[in-house]
């Protein structure tokens, strides 16, 4: 690939950034070269997103300089950065939910014929961009009805529309499946060939190893390593990020199944799934695999009373009907959503208020016991290693730390049956390991656990048994031993058939 001797198209020199009294970036140096892909990795809260926002002009640096084409500049606004050809895809979705796909992609740069919009041209262009990403949603779909991965594709299409020299992507693959990731990486290669400088972050180190030419590793707001990716293997990357040895990611499956906790038969959520039966015992971790759109989320949301569902459910042998989420909780069943931003956390509230929302009754002794709440927060921060200032709204926390907080919030309610949907989305590898251990401990302490995950490795590594869903139907149950990626994929896609990986819904 192109030599690193070219002048960097965009560089940060000694950039620091403070929020109030807290400095989160300490003298960061990073340089992007045209025609090269640069990966930025680090733990949750290391300052990756902040660095990227400064590079894209969304936030000012507190000190230090930004150089574009070797010239020091102040990027006063993202408009200015955009004019220089710098475009960014945010970690959190940055789409107007009530607008259509096409309206979002062209927002702020609508094509016009005279005064009026040239809708035909915009729709055609949208189609073309989405086709390039092999995404088949209609340009007229309202964004709020899209799946997370489709939203991500729309974000990418939006960035591709711009005339870019620098593309900055903050965890673009967190919500994508492997196939979609491959499509994205294909686009990245194409851009690289066109001479675009690409900066991206990911907690999936295999992707980093696969595509990045250059690598920068951050820890606690400072750069700890930078150089060509080829000099590092995945293991070394993980170590440099976390600052310690990361050995076995998954804890041993040493649980002994106990009493029957959950029996589900002929269960389904109309329109999404039907005829699903399974059982779950204390101490067991049940993995649920399937392609995005296979109805896993909806099925378990149905189980948790968040959607209308049909079928028989028994908890500890007793038949129950759960029509509302609080009824689920009364039966000891909690569901941890995959969508932390719009369903998981109150982004404009503090950590404390979010943490205790689900389990508020535990803190009610007539009135709320605020001291107990504060103590619970301290415990949660320690247990889950949540990093970030307690004074700010949780919307300002780094994505991974939000996920940890969501985890802590659900666990605070002491559920006996926990359904965890995409537990490690956007979580760094060190914390992942902690989380897996934590989930195993929960099982060992007699909880029954369901883990829904799109990461095949995670399901295989963590679960005692695996359910595979396809188009809302249960296509198979695999035991820990026989679970291989291949077996899951076969079930998930319909054996041997060359079905596209993404289900059309």
């Amino acid at each position, binding site marked *: 690939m192109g030599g690193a001797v070219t002048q960097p198209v965009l560089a940060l020199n000694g950039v620091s950034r403070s929020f109030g009294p807290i400095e989160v970036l300490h003298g960061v140096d990073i340089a992007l070269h045209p025609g090269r892909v640069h990966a930025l990795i680090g733990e949750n809260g290391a300052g990756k997103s902040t660095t990227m926002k400064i590079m894209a002009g969304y936030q000012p640096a507190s000190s230090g300089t930004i150089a574009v084409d070797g010239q020091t500049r102040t990027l006063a606004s*993202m408009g200015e950065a955009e004019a220089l050809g710098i475009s960014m895809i945010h970690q959190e979705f940055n*789409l*107007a939910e009530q*607008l259509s796909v096409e*309206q979002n992609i*062209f927002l*702020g740069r609508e094509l016009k014929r005279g005064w*009026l*919009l040239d809708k035909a041209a915009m729709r055609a262009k949208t189609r073309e961009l989405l086709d390039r990403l092999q995404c088949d949603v209609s340009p007229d779909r309202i964004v709020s009805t899209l799946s997370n991965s489709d939203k991500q594709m729309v974000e990418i299409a939006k960035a591709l529309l711009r005339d870019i020299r620098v593309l900055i992507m903050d965890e673009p693959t967190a919500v994508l499946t492997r196939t979609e990731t491959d499509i994205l990486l294909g686009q990245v290669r194409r851009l690289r060939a066109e001479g675009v400088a690409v900066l991206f972050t990911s907690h999936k180190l295999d992707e980093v190893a696969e595509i990045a030419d250059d690598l920068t590793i951050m820890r606690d707001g400072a750069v700890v390593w930078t150089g060509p990716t080829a000099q590092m293997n995945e293991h070394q990357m993980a170590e440099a990020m976390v600052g310690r040895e990361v050995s076995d990611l998954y804890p041993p499956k040493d649980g002994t199944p106990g009493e029957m906790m959950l029996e589900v038969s002929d269960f389904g959520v109309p329109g999404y799934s039907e005829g699903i039966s399974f059982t779950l015992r204390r101490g067991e971790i049940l993995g649920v695999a399937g392609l995005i759109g296979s109805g896993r989320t909806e099925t378990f949301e149905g189980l948790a009373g968040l959607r209308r569902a049909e079928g028989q459910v028994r908890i500890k042998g007793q038949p129950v009907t759960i029509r509302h989420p609080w009824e689920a909780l009364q039966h000891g069943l909690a569901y941890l959503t995959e969508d932390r931003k719009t369903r998981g956390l109150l982004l404009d509230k503090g950590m404390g208020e979010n943490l205790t929302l689900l389990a508020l009754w535990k803190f009610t002794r007539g009135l709320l016991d605020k001291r107990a709440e504060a103590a619970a927060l301290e415990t949660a921060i320690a247990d889950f290693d949540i990093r970030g200032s307690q004074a700010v709204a949780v919307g300002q926390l780094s994505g991974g730390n939000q996920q940890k907080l969501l985890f802590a919030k659900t666990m605070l309610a002491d559920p006996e049956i926990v359904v965890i949907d995409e537990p490690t989305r956007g979580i760094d590898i060190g914390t992942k390991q902690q989380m897996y251990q934590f989930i195993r401990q929960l099982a060992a302490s007699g909880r029954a656990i369901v883990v829904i995950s799109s990461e095949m490795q995670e399901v295989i590594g963590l679960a005692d048994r695996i359910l595979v869903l396809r188009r809302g139907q249960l296509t198979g149950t695999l035991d820990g031993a026989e679970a291989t990626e291949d077996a899951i994929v076969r079930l998930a896609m319909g054996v041997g058939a060359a079905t596209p990986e993404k289900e059309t819904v």
Partner: protein
Amino acid sequence: MSATATQPRKIQMSVIGPVLALILLIILGALMNPNFLGWNNISNVLSRSAFIGIIAVGMTFVITAGGLDLSVGSSAAFIAGLMILVMNTALPSMGVGVPIVLLGMAVALVAGVAVGLINGLLITKLGIEAFIVTLGSMGIYRSLVTWLADGGTLSLDFSLRSFYQPVYYGGVFGVSWPIIVFAVVVVLGEILMRSTAFGRHCAAIGSNDQVARYSSVRVARVRLATYVMLGVLVGVATIMYVPRLGSASASTGLLWELEAIAAVIVGGTMLKGGFGRVWGTVIGVLILTLIGNILNLTDFVSPYLNGAIQGAIIVLAVVLQRANKPA
């Protein structure tokens, strides 16, 4: 996905709902009185819808962009008062004729722009909630017109009024001017909302102003523009209103703001912003006007209960529209 599967149907219902309510009302009216569908009555209803209608079109943009304006009724009164005052003052020097009417119209439009600018700047520059700003200006303009009129009524000189009256009562091919102007405003509004960048930006801001800002939309400017546009439309409505009654007082335009907002929401625009529909607003306005008209056609309810019937029908119209929305 069923969420997606029901989505189109839900939109359908919210599209058809207000239309259905309107049709029901028309059938009801026709059954109650044979004159209801006479051109005379239709023309009356449409003309009087025009004031609120023109304002409500502007309100649709303000609400779509996540704003609100409580001051339209009193600013209409204020603009009417100002217009009358200016025209009466200019009368001795200018005499009755087209120029003085044009002067009056210019005053109304300029005052409308000013009113919109003041509201808009306070909201966008100082970042005060639209509710408070426009509640404040509502009080201010209402007081100002009372003060201008010295507690009484400001009246357009009678000769001037006779000259100016055709602007309300006259028309082309039997269609009166207010109806024509209303139609033009609606068509332009619909185009603006659906087929220009401005309309999209309004919806984007109302949906999520942060996102709009990140997409290089000039949020403050678009917001300001919605208020100015509303101000201008209030001016336009006033231009039609003054020749009808030839006067302005403290009770002019009372509660127009509630009516305009209600029309917008009955028409299917969301109060939270992010989604607006100009033609829906027209349906909303017609529903509201027709209720009053139909109550005048019959007298089997005590006039004291008119308000109750109106309230009930407004709620029913919206129930029709959202009937299949889950709790």
